[in-house]
Structures are given as C-alpha cells and as structure tokens.
C-alpha cells in the first residue's frame, strides 16, 4: 500500500505534536511520513494474530512506596531554570481572556 498523507492529517498531527510547520516543512513532513509508513507496513507481512502486545520485556509490576518527601527545598534552583519567572512562580502568557 502506498500511503498518502493529506493536508488535514499533517495539520492534525501538528496539533498533537504541538509543532508549527511552515508550508515547506509540511510538504517535506508529508513525504517523510509517507515513506516511513510505507516501510512500517512491512510489519503487515507478519501474522500477529493472538500475540499479546508486549510493552515490557520483563514481568514487572507497579512499584509502590510511602509518600514521604525525602528531597529538600530546591525552589530557587528550580525557578532559576525558568525562561521567565514572576517572584516564586513560572510566568506564562495569559490563558484566560
């Protein structure tokens, strides 16, 4: 099967990925994705009927611990990394009009 990625699909993926692509980038992304999906389709040659999807190679379970704080107060160090801060908070653009 030859994949054809539509403008709508690439726009939708852009929304999911939180990426803003230029018209030129979009065209390139479409071609790249079509090529990759054509290649990934080789997996359809495999009969996976009845095979459980394997998300983890070892039978691991949730690891629980008591909810106790062990690290110290690092507010200053954390906020020092913020591109923009206002006093003790991260500053973001206004979200509610």
């Amino acid at each position: 099967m030859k994949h054809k990625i539509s403008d709508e699909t690439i726009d939708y993926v852009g929304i999911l990925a939180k990426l803003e692509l230029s018209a030129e980038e979009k065209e390139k992304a479409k071609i790249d994705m079509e090529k990759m999906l054509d290649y990934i389709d080789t997996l359809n040659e495999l009969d996976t009927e009845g095979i459980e999807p394997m998300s983890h190679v070892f039978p691991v379970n949730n690891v629980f611990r008591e909810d106790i704080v062990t690290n110290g107060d690092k507010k200053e160090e954390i906020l020092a990394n913020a591109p923009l801060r206002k006093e003790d908070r991260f500053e973001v653009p206004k979200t509610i009009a």
Partner: protein
Amino acid sequence: MDILSFTALELGKMIKEKRASVLDAVKAVIERAKAVEQEINSYVTLDEEGALKQAEEVQRLIDSGTLTGPLAGVPVAVKDNLCIEGQLTTCSSKILSGFKPIYTAEAVLNLKKAGAVIIGKTNMDEFAMGSTTETSYYGPTKNPHNTAHVPGGSSGGSCAAVAAQECYYSLGSDTGGSIRQPSAFCGVVGLKPTYGTVSRYGLIAYGSSLDQIGPVAKDVSDCAAILEAIASHDTKDSTSVKRKDYDFTSALTDNVKGLKIGIPRDYLGEGLDEDIRRAIRKAAEVLEERGAVVEEFDLSLVQYAIPAYYVIASAEASSNLERFDGVKYGYRTPDYEGLHNMYKKTRSEGFGAEVKRRIMLGSFVLSSGYYDAYYLKALRTKALIKQAFDRAFEKYDVILGPAAPSTAPELGKSLTDPMKMYLGDIYTVAVNLAGLPGMSVPAGKDSKGLPIGMQLIGNSFQEKTLIRTAYTYECATNKQYVVPANIGEGV
C-alpha cells in the same frame, strides 16, 4: 610512557600506588582535549575548573583511605543526556539551552561514589535521535580515526572522546544501538546492559522502554569495572531490576571452552560490507580456536526489527518530549501570542529536523484510528522478536555478529536520506526491543583504515558471558585492534 595511553584500571592502580596523582591525570586529559577539540568536538561542555576541584577532593579521599575502588581518581566523560546537578545538560538540543539540573543521575552518582572525576559532557545526536552525531545543535563530532568521517551515534561524543584519549572512559546511552554502533565506528569497547540493570533516573528519556545507560571503554576489563560501578537497583526508577549478580569483573577470564556461539545467517547477508563480514568470520575462528563451538543459524524476523523499533521509539519520544514547552526550563521563543502559540513556536524553533520528524511520526502512530494498526502491531512484533531470541538462547550462550552493516560513513552523507540512516541500525535495534545485553568489541579495520566492531549479544542478565567472551577474544588477539586514534598527524 604517556599517561594518556593507560587504561582506566591501569591509571587507577597507578594512582593507588602513588605513581601518578589524580591531578596529573586530569590535567593530561584536559590538555589533550584542548589540543584536539577544535578538530574532534567530542564535548558540549569541558569543565576544567570543576574537574580540577574534583581532582583535589578525590585525591584527598584516596589518601585518607576513604576511596579504595579501582576507578578512584580516573577522569570520565558523561553523555549530555545525563543530568548532573548544577551543570549544563543540553541533550545537544537548542531547546535545553542553559538548563542546569537540580539533581544528578543515579549512574553518575554511582561513578562519583567510585571516585570518578567528571571532565565534561559529551556531544550526541539531539535527544539521542540519530546514528551519526550530526543532528547535534552544537555541531557534529568527528571520528578521531579519520576526521572526514562521523563517529557514529548517538553516543558519538562519548566514543570519540575515549578513542581520542580525551578521557579514560565515558558513559553513553543506548536506545537502538547508540552505544554499540559508535563504539564500533570509533574502535572502542561499548556495552548496553540488560534493560533495568543501570538506573535511568536522571537520564533524559527518549524511548523509555528501550533506553539503557552503559559504559564506553578502552578495553574489556575497563568495561566490566565501569559496569560494576554504575549498575544498581534504584527505587527511583520503577523499571530498575534487582539483579542476583553485580560482580561483572569476576567474568574477566580467558576461557570459552565449550561456549556455544551462534552467528545469525541473517546478519551476514546482503547489505553487509565485505571487510566486516571477513572480520566477523575471523573473530569467530579466533573464538573457535580457543574452544568455543561456533555455528550459523537462522534468527529470523531480522527485517521487522527496524520498523517495529521506529514505531515504538517514536511513540515514546512524542510523549517524553511533550515536557519541553518553554515554561519550566530551557529555550522560549522571544515572540508569541498566547500560551498555545508560545508552546508551538518554542518547540518548532527549539527542536531540530530529526527530532520533529520522530515526534510527528510518534504522534501519528498513537493517534486514534492508527493506534492499533501501528503501535499495537509494533508491540506484537516486539513479542515475536523476543520469542525468536528466546529460541536462539535455548541453543546458544552468545550470538555473534556485526555491530553495523558498514564502517563510519563520511560526514554529511547520512542526513539527506533518513530512511537509509535508519537501515544502519539493523543489527542493533532488536537487542533493545528484547531488552538484552549487547556489546561491541573492536575486531579489525576496513580497507580505508576505519575500525570494525563485532557485536556480542547475550540472554537477559548474561553480561558476564559477554564479558568472558570479549575478554578471551581480546587476550587471543593481543589487543591488536584496540589502538587509540592518531589524530591528524600534526596535532
């Protein structure tokens, strides 16, 4: 003898016996780095001041008898996707510009406990996505054996730094071959441990179900000693495994008598360089002469590992990289209108082309309507690949093959055709999908003088079998393939 030419363990011993000081070693690698960095670019950050300070402190602890381990005082370089408190950590991406973590990765803490002196952070493909170290925002790293060629990737800086003697050993990370392939290209020893062996706490995630941290070293003994230092059970990483054995150096024995080695026919077929095929067969003969039983077999499903890998890794990457949004750390676009526009512009300007490509693919395969056909299909394929390895390990102790289908390509030849670059991962990605340990060991040079690496793959938790095999090979070949790079004659 030049202090730089010693292995990590040799240097550690000299420091312990007071025949060298930690400061001597640190100054030597920093001087070396300053001399060759212009040409090689292994480091994103070379921390001279910090290293000199650590050297003093570590020397004091050695002198007082507090630090007694074999790696105490030995300078190390760390891949720039491992967090170190207060030290710039970039993942070689613009989006992490200026980011200084507030905690240190568990693997690095373990090294510090062993008395390591951290010289700096090494260059990599952006967010470990790439096979050449050319997708780095900080420019490509060059192969020290021939600077017209790439060092491989994504741990290209870590491997080049060891080959160029800019450190005594380094840490890399391996999601689809990112330790083994550049180790092969740079003629050094690299090991990806069984999933869960080294804590991923503080490793900036790419494909969480595949990522493992591992050592890059000058020889097999160093590699075993480093693994012994960094492996630990860590409750801060919920996928960390409590192993029965952590004594990896006990496997440094020159003996493969009766060891069953399988070479997948599918790993020697079409697409493999003739020089590499010859080197792998020769390596098999060497091990056979030492008493191993070698045969060829059909592993099967080899051609499905790459498509399954790119679906799973991209899916996990698209989720893991959502956190980079210009709010908490790193880069934020200067001009924006509102929150969502800020996110989008920040990410579009902050990520490079390869990272965006994988985030897009990952978002697509996880999206409603495609999740079953792509993501679940890939996870089912992964289960089949794991079964194929399980069957192989019923018959063999070790799987032997090449680490990559070619030696290091020339700079600038790979990124124009991403599909072709992905195909270079054919012998490495299946190991990550199945969570197995894999090791790359220098096994010769091609007609152009570029290093060739052989890959040893073991069953889960059988690192010691790999180390024993590699050590026996190294003894049998008298380390003739483990030679440091001779950079640009004049340097």
